[in-house]
């Protein structure tokens, strides 16, 4: 340990080290120790071990912060920070990555593209998310974002012989690279305005400036554009439906919860940190993006026949709800966004899990008609799908209600009655297209008689997502308290 790498630095970095270490280990063990296809379950076990070590590191940070009664722990001269916010999101990433890995094993076997790299990419992408949630420096955040995005570009194109997957990866790569360019431009202007890459120092420099300064406006607009791209908010959502549809379903699940949650964490860090004093300038932009996301997402989802595309548009509309929490800007709103992201993680994973479980030889399972009569074939999965769709629509007693409740409450507390009413009206539209899936499951007869083939991993993942979706809805208090601690000061 030296002055450049103190014990605190190490303590803060442990989860990321574990994720990177096990990610690289899986990459090498894939051809070195476990070359046989049957031995791939050991790679999955290694992933679980990596998550366990990362979780242990995170738990130690958690207990240390709670035990010392401090708000945050900074490391690397303020480049990384551990606070309630980063802990909240990192716990969520561990849950998301583990559930995705559990449901991937059989799916990749069926697709015939089962490679060890997949598990290593899951861990490395999560490592990027770790830096997005706990970075407090523009360069750390940007490198974390790129680490996550690069892993996702590869994973989206993982079905190498499938043209749709290749097309999706190419579109995602080009538009993702384009948006990163915007973000880097905005960051360079922020650096130029403040002379520092530390978020706290940028905040001080921006607070001293005139909010109508054209350079500040340019920096803010370009940064906002880059961030909106990453959370797939309208008008920068074009990549989402194609990427979601073409990617392997398990990757779509990971993309829709992991990447989105990490990008939201990143967005909150930037807007509630350095740009907080320029709220008057960015608030109209976010109001526009939120309403546009709700409109386009909900209306375009109505006419979709492919479930993955439908969920892509639904995910765009959920980005709109999350932005509304930030627009409200009060304590309830930020807490609401945190709860919303948590709820959305479990719920969306549950929906994708059912689509993944449907996949078998000769059935893709991503068309709404493929779900026909699911109630008669496997009532358990039909029930899970129903619970998760109710939760996505925001109907009690599922978790989605709690998420939407806090977003609407925060808007009303902030006096934004029109926004609250508009957002509530779009729930009605959402119920229509979610219930098209429900109707197909419960009211139509099965088109093919083949039974679902599930594995232990898929069943465990199903139980976890179902418990998460119902549990947060019925016993929200511990989760709300946890989210309340995650407020950025």
């Amino acid at each position, binding site marked *: 340990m030296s002055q450049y790498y103190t014990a605190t630095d190490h303590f803060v970095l442990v989860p990321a080290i574990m994720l990177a270490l096990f990610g*690289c280990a899986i*990459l090498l063990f894939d051809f070195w120790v476990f070359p046989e296809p049957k031995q791939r379950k050991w790679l999955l076990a290694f992933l679980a071990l990596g998550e366990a070590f990362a979780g242990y590191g995170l738990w130690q940070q958690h207990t240390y912060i709670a035990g010392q009664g401090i708000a945050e722990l900074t490391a690397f001269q303020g480049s990384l920070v551990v606070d309630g916010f980063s802990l909240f999101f990192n716990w969520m990433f561990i849950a998301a990555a583990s559930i995705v890995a559990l449901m991937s094993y059989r799916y990749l076997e069926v697709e015939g593209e089962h490679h060890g790299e997949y598990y290593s990419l899951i861990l490395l992408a999560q490592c990027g998310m770790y830096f997005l949630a706990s970075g407090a420096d523009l360069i750390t955040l940007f490198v974390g974002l790129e680490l996550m995005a690069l892993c996702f570009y590869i994973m989206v194109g993982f079905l190498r012989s499938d043209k749709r997957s290749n097309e999706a990866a190419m579109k995602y790569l080009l538009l993702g690279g384009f948006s990163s360019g915007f973000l880097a431009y905005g960051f360079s202007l922020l650096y130029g305005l403040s002379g520092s890459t530390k978020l706290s120092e940028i905040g001080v420099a921006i607070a001293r400036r005139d909010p109508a300064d054209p350079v500040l406006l340019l920096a803010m607009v370009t940064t906002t554009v880059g961030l909106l791209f990453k959370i797939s908010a309208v008008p920068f959502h074009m990549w989402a439906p194609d990427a979601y549809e073409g990617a392997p379903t398990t990757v779509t699940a990971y993309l829709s919860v992991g990447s989105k949650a990490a990008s939201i964490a990143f967005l909150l860090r930037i807007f509630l940190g350095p740009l907080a004093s320029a709220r008057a300038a960015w608030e109209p932009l976010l109001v526009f993006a939120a309403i546009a996301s709700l409109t386009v997402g909900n209306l375009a989802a109505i006419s979709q026949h492919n479930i993955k595309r439908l969920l892509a548009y639904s995910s765009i509309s959920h980005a709109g709800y999350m932005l509304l929490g930030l627009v409200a800007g009060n304590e309830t709103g930020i807490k609401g966004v945190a709860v919303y992201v948590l709820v959305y993680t479990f719920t969306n994973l549950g929906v994708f899990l059912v689509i993944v479980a449907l996949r078998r030889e000769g059935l893709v399972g991503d068309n709404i008609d493929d779900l026909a009569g699911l109630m008669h074939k496997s009532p358990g999965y039909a029930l899970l799908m129903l619970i998760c769709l109710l939760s996505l629509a925001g109907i009690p007693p599922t978790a989605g209600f709690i998420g939407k409740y806090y977003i609407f409450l925060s808007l009303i507390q902030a006096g934004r009655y029109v926004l609250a009413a508009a957002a509530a009206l779009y729930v009605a539209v959402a119920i229509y297209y979610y219930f098209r899936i429900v109707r197909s499951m419960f009211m139509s007869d099965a088109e093919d008689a083949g039974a679902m083939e599930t594995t232990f991993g898929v069943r465990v993942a199903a139980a976890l997502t179902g418990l998460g979706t119902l549990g947060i809805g019925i016993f929200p208090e511990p989760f709300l308290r946890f989210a309340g601690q995650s407020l950025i000061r």
Partner: protein
Amino acid sequence: MPESYVELYFPVFLQVLIAMAVAGGMIGGSYLLGRKVKNRIKDTPYECGITPTGSARGRFSVKFYLVAMLFILFDIEAVFLYPWAVVYRELKLFAFVEMFIFIVLILCGFFYIWKKGALDWSQQERPPEER
């Protein structure tokens, strides 16, 4: 301390102006003063003095791109060695350990592409189990 953006960026503006003047002057000067000979040989692309053969639209083996990309990746990693070498004396043991970890990670990647056959130029078909 310069007061406004105009004052701050005036040297940059001046430099851009001079650069454009130099470039324009060179091209314009040779255009005005030089002899103009037009023939077919002169219109062919310059290929380091070798007579060009065939069309530029020919197809290359995808291996060229793979090797080129891998080269760029490792080349960029090597660039990090220079700033490291500059500050090595100040950072002492920390710099050594840091670079050791960095090199080990690069070697992980190198070992990976090696074993996956990305460097194997003569290999015609990949083994069937890898597809």
